[in-house]
């Protein structure tokens, strides 16, 4: 591992970031997101992460992305988001600060990126140290014959938090699904409304309140009335669009009225 890094570092020193990018590209699926890729790229600088050149790193990353594009490799969107941000950071670092412009300076942004990389690296090191510790069941052991055998039978009921949450999820999801499966009778779809109205508008020679077009059985229950009102109104608009009827409303919240349009 260390040797690989060394070789990779050497190559970059000799040739260019572009080649390094090419070497990495082979492994593009092996990266756990843009920060991981940046961390790998940063190793080629061979300096303490606190002294890293973020500008150089940004250039390496952008070269990587360019190279991936040239090879027509599909990069996940978050890699491209990071590329855009790094391009922005690069311009901030290179150009003299514009006093009129708000927001953090390029140095602040670079410092935060360096902090993130250092923190991620620290967590990786910690994870490795943790997994390398003496572990129960591998390096040290618990009692092989625990003596908590049942002599006096006292029943103790147990449940884990997972059981509890799954139980709750079970009840909640049952409710969630009920509407999809069972409450369809409370729904009057726009297709149904349109079909119903097409049959009825022939008789609408005078202005008629569209609420009178609600189907039987959909006027008393509030959920059903709401659904039928919405679909009937939507269907009326559709009919206006088709040039078959006219709509009018005297004022806000007044009844909406409909009349057949004679060609």
């Amino acid at each position: 591992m260390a040797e690989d890094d060394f070789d990779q570092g050497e190559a970059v020193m000799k040739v260019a970031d572009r080649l390094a990018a090419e070497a990495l590209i082979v492994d593009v699926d092996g990266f756990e997101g843009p920060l991981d890729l940046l961390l790998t790229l940063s190793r080629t600088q061979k300096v303490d992460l606190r002294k890293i050149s973020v500008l150089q790193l940004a250039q390496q990353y952008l070269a990587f992305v360019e190279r991936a594009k040239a090879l027509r490799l599909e990069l996940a969107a978050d890699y491209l988001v990071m590329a855009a941000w790094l391009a922005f950071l690069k311009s901030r670092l290179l150009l003299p600060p514009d006093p009129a412009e708000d927001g953090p300076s390029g140095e602040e942004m670079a410092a935060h990126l360096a902090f993130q990389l250092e923190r991620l690296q620290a967590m990786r090191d910690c994870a490795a140290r943790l997994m390398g510790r003496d572990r129960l069941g591998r390096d040290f052991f618990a009692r092989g014959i625990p003596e908590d055998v049942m002599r006096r039978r006292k029943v103790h009921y147990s449940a884990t938090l997972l059981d509890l949450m799954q139980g709750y999820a079970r009840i909640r999801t049952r409710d969630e699904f009920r509407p999809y499966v069972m409450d369809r009778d409370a729904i009057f779809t726009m297709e149904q409304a349109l079909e119903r109205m097409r049959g009825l508008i022939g008789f609408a020679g005078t202005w008629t309140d569209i609420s009178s077009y609600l189907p039987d059985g959909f006027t008393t229950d509030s959920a059903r009335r709401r659904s039928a009102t919405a679909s009937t109104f939507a269907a009326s608009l559709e009919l206006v669009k088709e040039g078959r009827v006219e709509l009018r409303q005297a004022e806000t919240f007044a009844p909406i009225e409909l009349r057949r349009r004679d060609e």
Partner: protein
Amino acid sequence: MAEQERMIEAMLFASAAPLSTRDMAERMPHGCDPAEALVHLRKRYEGRGVRVAKVGDAWAMRTAPDLGYLMSRETVETRKLSRAAIETLAIIAYHQPVTRAEIEEIRGVSVSRGTVDQLLEMEWIRFGRRKMTPGRPVTFVVTQEFLDHFGLESARDLPGLKELRAAGLLENRPPPGTMPQPGEGGDVEESETAPGQNELFED
């Protein structure tokens, strides 16, 4: 010899079955003498809370017989809580203080007296304040024992619906074919169910 004594001490402690001196010798580095180490180890544990006991022609560590009374509380049989009890408990935890009628409404089935009694006996739930509604029904709330058992600091730390989903606990999907199709009025349904659900999850 001190090192060999350590070895057999560790093996006898961790082994799931009694070990013969031959078993021990097989595991130990070549040239060790478990029989002799055993003599030392037995001596060391004389009069202690644990002793090295002979079981057939093998050896095992056992608690001293005079301390058996200390083990009596560990002789418990652990059983899984029934599904009804878990669901009832979950509803109390998430909706407390909650009346029996409310639990039944949420579960969609009646709650047996035994279930509530069991949870009360386990001291995971207790009676809360009476509700100021007709009949002044009693309510149920969860106890400190409940929080301790489930490793929670307060009932407010129970994960919500969104987090249950994120943890992969809401896997149920409606059976295929019952999913609303685009343009079939699916949007209407969704917006109608949403407020009611949120309500239940208000902190």
